[in-house]
């Protein structure tokens, strides 16, 4: 039985300009200890998927239209808030892209880092503080005994992300959701943080959902990858298969447009047209207007994520029929 199983999640935002279907029928599951990468461009719904699971969607304007997210027998999307609160922040934790804005600038690091323990565990403040100190040391902060009393602005970007990780992992969660945790950091610091996440995952045996737009980060870290486009999962496979035998034209196009995989100085492949307007209801494949293999039928027929081989599924009708 998977650790987390999301079925037919639909999240939309109701605004004056219409209904934005940010997540449009997403289903996936996560095994214990597994690392799942969610890749997509901005607006593809990768963050909203995870925000929905964590109950972080502002409602209104957001609305979770349908779906279930089963975690240990509890449906996180439809259970009473008290029950969800016992899981979120304790057994499922999250870290965010920008460590500058996701820490509270008014509170000392010590208070922020032990907050999950105070809330979720029956623990004295002194004992929580001890564990906070140990958590900071575990994420590689030198001189933790002094630094635990500092404010967030006294830390550098990489150090703040370490504090965030310490805070997220202090309750020993079973799932860590990492939403572009290294995008705001320099490459050398990014390497440190990725190593740290790997190390902590190894120690705690937790599952990680890693949201990123960087295919390079995914290739080293993730066991399985799912590619999102316009609120839908268009392809999912284990990392090797996805990189070496991508089936969906969007995945292929993404790979052809990154300089790292192309000969130097060659013309990069560009995806024609613009990302779709998700406020308009699409019948067919959302990528069809930009796809070089798109036909009229693609824009008419609804697409579904179907397996093409064990562990590999994609949503391209033409590839399934063997036409491309």
């Amino acid at each position, binding site marked *: 039985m998977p650790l987390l199983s999301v079925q037919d999640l639909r999240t939309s935002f109701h605004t004056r300009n219409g209904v934005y279907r940010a997540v449009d029928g997403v289903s996936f599951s996560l095994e214990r200890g597994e690392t799942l990468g969610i890749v997509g*461009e*901005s607006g593809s719904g990768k963050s909203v998927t995870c925000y929905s699971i964590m109950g972080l969607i502002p409602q209104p304007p957001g609305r979770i239209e349908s779906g279930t997210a089963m975690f240990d027998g509890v449906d996180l999307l439809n259970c009473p808030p008290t029950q969800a609160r016992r899981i979120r922040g304790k057994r499922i934790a999250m870290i965010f892209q920008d460590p500058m804005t996701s820490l509270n600038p008014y509170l000392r690091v010590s208070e922020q880092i032990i907050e999950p323990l105070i809330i979720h565990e029956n623990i004295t403040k002194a004992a929580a503080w001890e564990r906070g100190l140990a958590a900071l040391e575990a994420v590689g902060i030198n001189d933790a005994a002094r630094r635990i009393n500092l404010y967030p602005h006294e830390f*550098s*970007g*990489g*150090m703040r992300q370490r504090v965030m990780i310490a805070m997220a992992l202090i309750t020993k969660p079973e799932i860590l959701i990492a939403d572009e945790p290294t995008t705001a950091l*320099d*490459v*050398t*610091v*990014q*390497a*440190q943080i*990725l*190593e740290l996440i790997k190390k902590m995952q190894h120690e705690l045996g937790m599952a990680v959902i890693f949201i990123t*737009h*960087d*295919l*390079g*980060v*995914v*290739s*080293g870290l993730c066991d399985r990858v799912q590619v999102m486009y316009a609120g839908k999962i268009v392809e999912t496979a284990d*990392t*090797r298969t996805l*990189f*070496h035998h991508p089936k969906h034209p969007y995945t292929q*196009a*993404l*790979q052809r*447009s*990154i*300089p*790292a*995989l*192309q000969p*130097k*100085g060659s*013309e*990069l*492949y*560009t*995806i024609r047209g*613009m*990302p779709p307007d998700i406020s308009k209801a699409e019948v067919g494949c959302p990528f069809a207007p930009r796809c070089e293999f798109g036909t009229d039928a693609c824009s008419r027929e609804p697409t579904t994520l179907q397996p093409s081989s064990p562990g590999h599924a994609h949503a391209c009708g033409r590839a399934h029929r063997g036409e491309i």
Partner: protein
Amino acid sequence: MPSPILQLTDVRTHFPISHGLIFKRHVGTVKAVDGVTLSLAPGEVLGLVGESGCGKSTLARTIMQLVPTTSGAVVLEGKNLTAKSTREDLRRARRHMQMVFQDPYASLNPRMTVFDTLAEPLRVHAVCPPESVSARVTELMQLVGLAPRFMQKYPHEFSGGQRQRIAIARALALEPRLIIADEPVSALDVSIQAQILNLLSQLCRKMHLSLIFIAHDLSVVKHISDRVAVMYLGKIVELGTAIDVIERPSHPYTRALVSAIPTPNPEVERTRQRIVLLGDPPSPINPPAGCSFHPRCPHAQETCRTAIPALRTAGVGREVACDRLGEF
């Protein structure tokens, strides 16, 4: 070798830090750019890489003379811009060098239409008669792949990639010889990034432009650049052809930087040994003595703490600032 379009000689840009409101005390200096010597040939694309705070953007602003130079010379097409340039001199020089910024949401005036934005440099520098401004704007828009019918639209009506095209068109309006692009694709999605990279390299070839391309993404820099300069704490630590520097890095910092980039290839990514640097880049206010990289360098020795390594020739067209080169 043709005479360089741009020649920097021992350029330093320091910013004083002062405390106090009325009685200002000088408490320190940020050595943002600290002794950079560089030349750029016509039509050449130079990639400038380094971590945040290493002085890449300040170097760009120094070349543009947007910040005062502390010492050294910036020579553009034989004219020294640093030595007693009047505003008029600079104004004339700036026609020949233009800049494209990172964030196309912030670098375009939201109250100006595309036409206004592109016509402004033409009017200011009076490069074409008023009646042909419109034709020139149309031409510029076509050059960067924008439909001229969008001429009367405002920046908010465009996507990030289109805005960056407008910013590039604005930079090209005066037919400059040199363009400095400061992280032009960092804020864009991969598919849009590819479009802008293609556009920039096409324009360089077609118009024989020189380009200084600043980025932190080494794979992007390798793709577009002829030569690459790696900066660390205000100094260039390695300079050479793009392939040489990125595929065969010599300086320990470049090695670490190259090994830190995740490559989109699962096999390579899982087997290779990554050099993970300890700590954060040090502050340019109190740079370490000797080689500024020594506190993070895996090969540092006693001598590295005292002697500042100079940028020395190491092979054809290759310069490296490391005293222990070849010893590890």
